[in-house]
């Protein structure tokens, strides 16, 4: 029982990242009709916002410690972060410690800006081009972005630890007499994802802007005929989608250390999530994200891998095939969306 609940939690956790990326992909699909292969790169850029802030906060001045030597036998240069010099070791140390959560604040404007720049600067020129061109240009953009990140940050993973207060595990099954020790930060990530998903849905559901966007997604031409500049709103949605992917990346850093390739690792799976959920369906993307996360988690258990060897590597694609055969529009895809 404990093991099953633990795998469900693991699945929800992994599913959170899939759901957030797939949500952004679907927003862009639904509004602009573009298959954005650079979306994984936006997730990666978000994670590197945290890396960058961590590095900025850790910028240090050097003092020489004559009592110690470095690897060449020279006097050791001791680095002290400027923030610790300015605010004292306690406050300065705490600021560095909370670098990842603080990154959320800077990541939102940065990612919205990157989203705007991407859409206005590149992707909008491809709306009338064949889809192969759109896929190639966004895929190319993803490669360019990850190579830029690799140039500045190297190819190895970089640790972005959570704050000390959120390190460690908590026994969330204690109230029910169960032993389910789960990392605190993973709980934080799941709750954060739920909050973001809730925020995006509320924004679309309860604001005038969101209403117009939904109308535009259903029938872009008619909304345009009403005198509404739907393109501008769709560009904003691209910015929003970029921010959602970016925030997913920022908070993912403490779970697995970011590297330049992490976007590509999630991209293909996120596309499968979108297709399984139903193209253009936001609730479908979220549902499929969590569902596939949980299935993948169970498929990795010892029982599953010994019963059907290799099931952990194919489960997501197997489910995608079954869903597409039985429900060709995906779990929650609607008739008429993305169809001739």
């Amino acid at each position, binding site marked *: 029982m404990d093991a099953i609940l633990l795998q469900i939690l693991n699945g929800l956790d992994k599913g959170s990242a899939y759901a957030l990326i797939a949500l952004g992909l679907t927003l862009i699909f639904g509004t602009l*009709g573009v*298959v954005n292969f650079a979306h994984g790169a936006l997730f990666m850029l978000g994670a590197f916002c945290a890396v960058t802030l961590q590095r900025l906060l850790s910028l240090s001045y050097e003092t020489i410690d004559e009592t110690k030597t470095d690897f060449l036998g020279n006097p050791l240069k001791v680095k002290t972060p400027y923030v610790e010099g300015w605010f004292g070791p306690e406050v300065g140390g705490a600021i560095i410690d909370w670098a990842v959560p603080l990154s959320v604040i800077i990541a939102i404007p940065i990612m919205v800006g990157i989203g705007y720049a991407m859409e206005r600067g590149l992707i909008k020129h491809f709306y009338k081009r064949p889809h192969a061109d759109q896929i190639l240009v966004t895929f190319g953009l993803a490669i360019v972005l990850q190579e830029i990140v*690799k140039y500045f940050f190297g*190819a190895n993973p970089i640790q972005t630890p959570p704050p000390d207060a959120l390190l460690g*595990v908590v026994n969330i099954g204690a109230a029910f007499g169960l032993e389910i020790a789960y990392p605190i930060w993973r709980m934080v990530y799941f709750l954060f994802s739920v909050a973001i998903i809730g925020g995006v849905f509320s924004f679309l559901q309860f604001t005038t802007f969101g209403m117009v966007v939904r109308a535009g997604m259903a029938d872009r031409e008619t909304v345009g005929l009403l005198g509404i500049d739907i393109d501008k709103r769709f560009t904003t949605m691209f910015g929003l989608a970029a921010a959602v992917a970016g925030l997913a990346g920022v908070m993912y850093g403490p779970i697995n250390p970011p590297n330049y390739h992490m976007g590509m690792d999630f991209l293909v799976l996120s596309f499968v999530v979108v297709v399984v959920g139903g193209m253009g369906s936001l609730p479908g993307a979220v549902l499929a994200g969590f569902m596939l996360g949980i299935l993948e988690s169970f498929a990795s258990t010892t029982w599953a891998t010994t019963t059907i060897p290799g099931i*952990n590597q194919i489960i997501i694609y197997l489910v995608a095939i079954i869903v597409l055969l039985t429900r060709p529009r995906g779990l929650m895809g609607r008739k008429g969306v993305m169809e001739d």
Partner: protein
Amino acid sequence: MSKFNVTRRGAIKTTAAAGAGLALPTIFTSSAYAITNNPTGGSVTLGFNVPQTGPYADEGADELRAYELAVEHLNGGGDGGMLNTFSSKVLDGTGIMGKKVEYVTGDTQTKSDAARASAKSMIEKDGAIMITGGSSSGVAIAVQGLCQEAGVIFMAGLTHSNDTTGKDRKANGFRHFFNGYMSGAALAPVLKNLYGDDRKAYHLTADYTWGWTQQESIAAATEALGWETVNNVLTPLASTDFSSYIAPVLNSGADVLVLNHYGGNMVNSLTNAVQFGLREKQVNGKNFEIVVPLFSRLMARGAGENIKGIVGSTNWHWSLQDDGSKAFVKSFGEKYGFPPSQAAHTCYVQTLLYADAVTRAGSFAPCDVAAALEGFEFDGMGNGKTLYRAEDHQCFKDVLVVKGKENPQSEFDLLEVVEVTPAAQVTYPPNHPMFGGDEASLGQCNNGA
């Protein structure tokens, strides 16, 4: 109505076509090799085939630094580095047999087909007479096979799978780096001292040649101590989140987790294991322990705090205090500003060993060079007395057992050496079952065109 004209079928078809296009092999040609193994001009070209892109690009960059340093030293530049400490004294800083050493580089991308293509291009187009480098056993075995066919010498870089000098050994290929069996043999006694002989081990293993042989070696070595192997789960190389593999460990009754992972896999699996509180856990009345059989300082940096106190093995470490290591660290550190990695060390040594063998043989012909390397005993290269065994072209030398340092003095000071295991303890017969048994053979040396 809506101006959408994306169709699901169209999008999937286009995606598949784009994917297929990107996955096409880099080179289709299979023309006959045209090699010059007898350089006649005033220079000789070496081919450095390292990962310049992809997940091991940082290791590749460090390997390249080491190669550039080796070339500088061979040509008489810099302070000479290990040329001053190497027991063989035939290299005099005038290149190789009086010919200036030049080099070309290739990008393995840590993909076998790309690595073979770049090696082939360096041999055919640039006239490279020796290929060296790499940071993956899959790549090393693939390039070694190509060099055998092409008739050039292959001096392997970082490759730790038993197969490289085991069932896939080749007459034209040589490995200085240690292997999975040696890691197991070196680690086992230390693990017994630290954690006792009554342990239950759970293995997570990267699902490719290196992972398999590594797991087999460690399991055999620890079972010989009395440890029980509770389970071995193969994880896909592309895995990024290992939480669903870690969770079953908690209920398996195991009290040791062995991570047969390298690179990004190791960083992520170790981070996940620590996240799940394994290191604070008590199982069977003992502290739960984690073991990472193959350590690399570059990777340890990625794992950050999580590495502290974790035991593993390594081929070489910059903190060694023998003359060879000190000379190399000084040359490298002064040129680049930081200490070299074990990948850099093995690549530097391999280059000098090749140059030395050519000079001793008095010939660039691969079979003459191979004969000079076979059974060659040397010292002063950072690992103590070393033998290039003739039967399988594997170097036998001391192996370092290391532990993540609790209180690092600097960003490079991540590992501390807990034991130097003597070469005799990690030596095995050439026909050992883990190395292809009696059927494993080097084959015929190929002198090329």
